Every structure is written in C-alpha cells, then in structure tokens.
C-alpha cells in the first residue's frame, strides 16, 4: 500500500467511532433544539452524547496510546511552546493531539457533560429554569468550541501538510520528519 511515506496508526477504531458519533449526536441535538416536534429526537441525541462522553472518559485511561489523556495532557508550558512555534511559522509536530487541540478536547468533554446534565435536569424538571439557561449557554459554548476545533483542523492540516480529517477516518497518519515533538 504505502510507497514513499510510511504511515503510522494514530487513532484506534473505538476513538474514531466515538469521534464521529459524538459529532453526529451533537449536530443532531443542535439542529433539533428549536422545535417541540423534534423534542424526542433531541433527547435521544442528548443521551447518546452523554453515553459517548462516558465511554471516552473511560477510554482516556485504558484506550490506545494516543487516545489516553496522559498522552496529551496540555500543560501550560507545552501549550505556550506550541503557540510560539505556531507564530514563528514552524509549528512543532505531534503525532497525536497537539497541545492546543488537547485543550479544546478537554473543554469539549467538560462542556458536553454540562450540556447533557443540564439537559437531563431541564427535561425532568429538576433544578428549575436555571438549568434551561445553563443548558443553552453550555450548548452555545460547545458550538463555539466545535467551530474553533474545525478551524484548528484546517490550519493544522495546512501547516503540517497532513490531512487530519482523513486521519480521523482511517486512523493513520503519514510519517513526517519536521519539528518532531512527540
């Protein structure tokens, strides 16, 4: 298969299935949020999102190498170094998540938990109107993070000359030897 550049397996299958399922459930929940006619679909999408995040939290400890939280814990130092290298036009290359992407992932997971919990509370009328406000604010925050994440994927793919979308589908990345960092 591979002729010039060898490829390495980066994202294991459960992580990839999780990724696209989470993206789907979030989009479905988001577009069904405005009408009571879609309320049952919205709720099912919300439960799916919660279940998927629960799986990912577990997988972050027992999953494949680059899926483990310990593999991409974004310390302030690492994030700063990465952003500096980005501004210098020589971004350090990470095989797994880069530190900026890692921050987005932890924020997305946290946001998702808040959205799911406050959505459950709203649907079951626990905690009152406050939960509805929290639900909407957290969902909008999550959408903002998704947009930042997508922008990051585009910029990162361009800077590192690699197709990150394809990598999340096939699980493999081409091996490069520019500014290796981990």
């Amino acid at each position: 298969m591979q002729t010039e550049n060898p490829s390495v397996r980066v994202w294991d299958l459960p992580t990839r299935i999780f990724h696209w399922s989470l993206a789907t459930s979030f989009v479905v929940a988001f577009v069904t949020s405005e009408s009571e006619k879609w309320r049952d679909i919205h709720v099912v999408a919300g439960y799916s999102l919660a279940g998927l995040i629960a799986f990912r939290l577990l997988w972050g400890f027992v999953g494949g190498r680059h899926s483990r939280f310990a593999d991409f814990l974004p310390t302030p130092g690492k994030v700063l170094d990465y952003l500096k290298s980005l501004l210098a036009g020589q971004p350090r290359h990470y095989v797994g998540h880069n530190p900026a992407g890692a921050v987005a992932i932890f924020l997305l997971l946290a946001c998702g938990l808040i959205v799911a919990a406050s959505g459950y509370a709203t649907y079951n009328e626990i905690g009152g109107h406050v939960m509805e406000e929290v639900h909407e604010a957290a969902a909008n925050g999550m959408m903002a993070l998704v947009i930042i994440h997508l922008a990051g994927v585009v910029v990162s793919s361009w800077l590192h000359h690699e197709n990150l979308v394809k990598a999340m589908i096939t699980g493999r990345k081409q091996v490069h030897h520019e500014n290796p960092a981990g």
Partner: protein
Amino acid sequence: MCAIDTLETDMRTSLLIAAILIAASGAGRAETPRDFLTRFEKEAGTAASAERGARFFTAKQGGEWSCASCHGERPTQAGRHAKTDKPITALAPAANAERFTDAAKVDKWFRRNCNDTINRACSAQEKADVLAWLLSLK
C-alpha cells in the same frame, strides 16, 4: 493535574457565564401579564380582542398543532406536551402566577411555539389577542 485544572476552570467559567446570564435575564424588572398586553397592543397599534385570541388559540392554521394541542382547550388547567406527553403547567395567569412575568421567557416561547404551530413568527396583534383571552379566563 493540568487537565483537571482545565476542567475545573472551564466548569467555573461556565457557571460564571450562567450566573451572569441568569442575573442579566432577572435584571429586567418584574413584569405583569398586563404589561405584556399593553406592550403587544402598542406594537400592534390596535386594541386586542379576546374573542379573536380564543379562535387563534384553538384552531390549527395549516400546521399539525394549534396552541391548544399542548396547552389544552382550557388553559386554566395543565396541558400535555403533544410529543412527549409531559404535563405543562397552566398558561392562564389566573391559574398560574408565574406566567407572563419574564420578558425573556415570553419572547423565547412565543418565538419557538409560533414556529411550531403557524410556521412563522406571531404578529404583535396575534400575541395581544391570545394574551387578552388568557387574561379573561378565571
């Protein structure tokens, strides 16, 4: 360690944002159903008609649902969600003092529910009529 810091910071930020939003939405002075009626009549430029409101509320208008599909024919009583079957507290202010006291809620739910019933935004006149009818219910 840092991931936990990030998570905590994010949660704190979210809670803070939520608190600000709630404070902001609560900061709008307490309003009464009459204040909303006055506002909608002023926007419409004509007086409200409770009779017209009653017809508007109970009749389907091209869509699958009318207001009454969820709020019931007699909104002094609790309604039932047409999709989920969950109870909905009474809409008439005489039966439920919380109704029509919060501008953010009133605007949000008119926006959502008008789209669900008549597939467009309600006019100020339609809102005035419905509210006039709801206020006439004892």
